[in-house]
């Protein structure tokens, strides 16, 4: 592989030298038949994604695609991915992973299997034994340069990792950086990469200037929870969890600062996806959808998106009312206490004071329940609305892939026509050049077709996995929520049972 890396392909006008040191060996996807050489490489950083799939029998110069690809990308993508492997080098075909030595024996399994399916079965499908928690938010530094550091703890029995139980400290931009790397590697080949949490200028500024109040604490907690969910979703993905960037994020004590995180937030991604979608539409792609499945699924996701947004609004309203109820209960408790204080009749006075205390406790229950409403439901629905943008994104990438393939075909046709004309002229050099170009384009067309089929295949699997995860996710959350509801009622029963004798004892 080292050979490939040092041999810059000709005419790579858009060839970007990778900036950060760690990104040196961006995926030249290796041919399946040489696992041994890969394993021996001392490459300390990321692989480029899942191992190569069925189409690994054509060893070809994958750098060839690079320039074509760049021209189709929207400009945002370049900004977005400047931190990660450059688009110019990112091939469309599913590359093999560049295995890092520390993965050890696990990847023997990966190499003996030649298909995605088998890998999944081998790992037990979606029940990967790994749990991540994000905790202990700690303010580091002062003033506007301050930031929150979070402790990321991983507990796992997967052999992917060096230990079973370990922690690192990360800041918010690190999470965004991780997302950007994963997005640049996997989104365009059809993997649904979970989006990172939103950036929030207002929230963070308050925290930075040291405003220690209710709202800034709530903000930090909201963010902590979102980061945890983000990581869990990422590692639950059987392919993403093996990505070296993910492993590095979870394990390594020092992480180079992610730059340019402005565009890396979900909002930035959303903008990018929307712009890409617009670009796609502007190209007036009349895709001959040979597979009704895709059309149907796209419609299904449109519907789901609108339904989830409605639900989200509904839950927000519920959370709002419950918070209002808590405020009102607290105020009533105060007024009951005052009434009790002014009361002459001793037993009645005591009962009224007890009443005030009960109401204060109930207020606390309301607050806890409001948190459950929010953190369980509202955030779940919000997460899924954001996930759906990623889903839409992969569908759009599929369209773009198709378009590229079509463009190659059109170009090939033109070249053939030109060649035919050249036959009748006496320009052997030009003729040869034309023949060479045609050969190249034929390869491209075949690659384009393969890419399209691959991304379609990947999307099908991803969608199936997504749908199953969705059901599981909702069920898990709902069970947690019901437990909180039952718990609240039991508390109330305790409070009322304690109050009843006090009420009866008056007079």
């Amino acid at each position, binding site marked *: 592989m080292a050979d490939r890396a040092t041999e810059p392909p000709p005419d790579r006008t858009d060839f970007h030298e990778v900036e950060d040191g760690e990104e040196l060996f961006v995926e030249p996807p290796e041919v399946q038949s040489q696992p041994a050489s890969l394993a021996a490489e001392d490459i300390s950083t990321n692989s480029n994604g899942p191992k190569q799939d069925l189409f690994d029998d054509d060893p070809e110069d994958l750098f060839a695609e690079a320039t074509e690809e760049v021209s189709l990308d929207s400009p945002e993508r370049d900004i977005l991915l400047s931190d990660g492997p450059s688009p110019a080098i990112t091939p469309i075909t599913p590359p093999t992973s560049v295995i890092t030595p520390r993965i050890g024996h696990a990847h023997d399994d990966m190499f003996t299997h030649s298909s995605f399916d088998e890998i999944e079965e081998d790992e037990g499908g979606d029940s990967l034994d790994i749990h991540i928690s994000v905790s202990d938010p700690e303010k580091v530094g002062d003033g506007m340069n301050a930031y929150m550091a979070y402790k990321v703890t991983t507990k796992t029995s997967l052999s992917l990792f060096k230990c079973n139980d370990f922690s690192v400290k990360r800041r918010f931009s690190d999470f965004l950086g991780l997302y950007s790397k994963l997005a640049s590697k996997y989104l365009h080949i059809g993997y649904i990469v979970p989006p990172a949490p939103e950036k929030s200028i207002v929230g963070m500024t308050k925290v930075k200037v040291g405003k220690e109040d209710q709202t800034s604490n709530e903000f930090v907690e909201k963010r902590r929870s979102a980061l945890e969910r983000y990581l869990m979703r990422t590692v639950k993905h059987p392919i993403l969890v093996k990505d070296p960037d993910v492993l590095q994020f979870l394990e390594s004590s020092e992480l180079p600062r992610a730059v340019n995180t402005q565009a890396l937030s979900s909002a930035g991604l959303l903008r990018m996806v929307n712009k890409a979608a617009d670009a796609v539409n502007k190209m007036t792609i009349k895709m001959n959808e040979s597979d009704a499945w895709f059309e149907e699924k796209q419609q*299904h996701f449109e*519907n*789901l998106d609108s*339904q*989830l947004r*409605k*639900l989200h609004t*509904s*839950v927000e*309203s*519920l959370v709002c*009312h*419950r918070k*209002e*109820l808590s405020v*009102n*209960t607290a*105020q*009533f408790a*105060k*007024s*009951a206490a*005052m*009434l009790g204080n*002014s*009361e*002459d*009749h001793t037993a*009645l006075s005591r*009962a009224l004071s007890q*009443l005030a205390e009960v109401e204060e406790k109930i207020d606390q229950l309301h607050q806890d329940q409001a948190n459950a409403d929010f953190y369980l439901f509202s955030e779940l629905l919000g997460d899924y609305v954001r996930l759906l943008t990623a889903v839409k994104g992969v569908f759009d990438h599929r369209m773009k892939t198709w378009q590229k393939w079509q463009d190659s075909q059109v170009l090939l046709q033109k070249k053939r026509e030109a060649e035919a004309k050249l036959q009748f002229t006496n320009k052997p050099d030009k003729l040869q050049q034309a023949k060479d170009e045609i050969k190249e384009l034929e390869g491209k067309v075949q690659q384009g077709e393969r890419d399209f089929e691959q991304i379609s295949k990947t999307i099908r699997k991803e969608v*199936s996995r997504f*749908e*199953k995860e*969705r*059901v599981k996710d*909702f*069920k898990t959350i*709902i*069970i947690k*929520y*019901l*437990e909180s*509801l*039952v718990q609240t*009622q*039991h508390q*109330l*029963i305790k409070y*009322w*049972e304690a*109050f*009843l004798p006090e*009420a*009866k004892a*008056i*007079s």
Partner: protein
Amino acid sequence: MTGEVKEKMSVLTVHGHNIKVTEVLNDGDALTFIIISQKLSGTGEYHVHRTYEDFEWLQQHLFSQEDVPGIQGVIFPPLPAKSHVNMSAKVIKQLGFLGIGEWQLYCKALETFLHQVAGHSILSKNKAVEVFLTNTDPPGRQRAKKNILNRLSQAVEELRKEGHKDVDEFFQSERHHNHVMTCCARTAAEKFLDVVLTEQKMAVACGHFSTALHLCVEPGEDPDKKAFSRVCVKLSEVFDSMKKNMTDVAQNNMITLGLCLDLESRYQEAEKEMLFRRTCKLVELETATRNAERAKPVKKAFMEELKTATETEFEHINGVAKKEIAYFGGVRVEMLQQSLVQWCEKQLLTAKESADQFNKHLQAFSGMV
């Protein structure tokens, strides 16, 4: 007035404690209340139809008993404010607890009013009470003449007398205590109303969420779709239960503690009015005394007589007031205790039912494959 009017009758022929205001008839213009009282003789019931104006008629008659000595010392059971068929937001706000929901609470408040009137040693003797409760025909619509008992007639300058220093320590302290209690009770009632209104809003929000979930149900044979649809349906059932729970909690609050706090606050106001009347009489007495002292010999005897009459009135009022204050003190403690116990019992029951229901949902979800 015709029918069975017993002109000289001053004793109530029905039980006071179990009068029921059972129904409201709404003919679009006015509300008519059906009042049922049990005959003392045990031989049956009286069913009468009364409008709010009839209640006012009764109240006016009670106010205008000038022949009863010390009548101004009575703490008159408070009549709820007038309700209308279609109420403006302002009126609803004024009514507080009595303005929310259906007429259930309003009827209960009217019922309580009648209990208190019929159970009052002085007031129950007024034949207007008998007429009101037993006469098939509506009582007369003539407005009784306005008198000092009608708060509306008290001119603004008289309110300055409210702070007038008392000659009696008992009453001075009582006036202060009552002032504090009136404020506290009113605030507590208002805050509790806010709680109940928010609970009702939450019930509505739960209902909306439940409905929105039904929109997520998609037809189709796809197993994932079916699984998700099942989840949505079951979840909407959970929110239906939440809605029921909230509704019940609000209802319990309203009909026990809410109603009680409302009554307590209005009753404290009624005592305040009584104390004010007494204070006015005190001022009158002090004026009469001064006048008698300063009167020229020609008028002196007359002034002295006036002073003596006023003094006697004042004494009567004091006597009645003291009894009323003691009586009222006992009644309100009993009332508060009853409603606190009822409130607690109802909320306890609701919490147990809800815990049960949520647990069933939890089991169903956990068991769902």
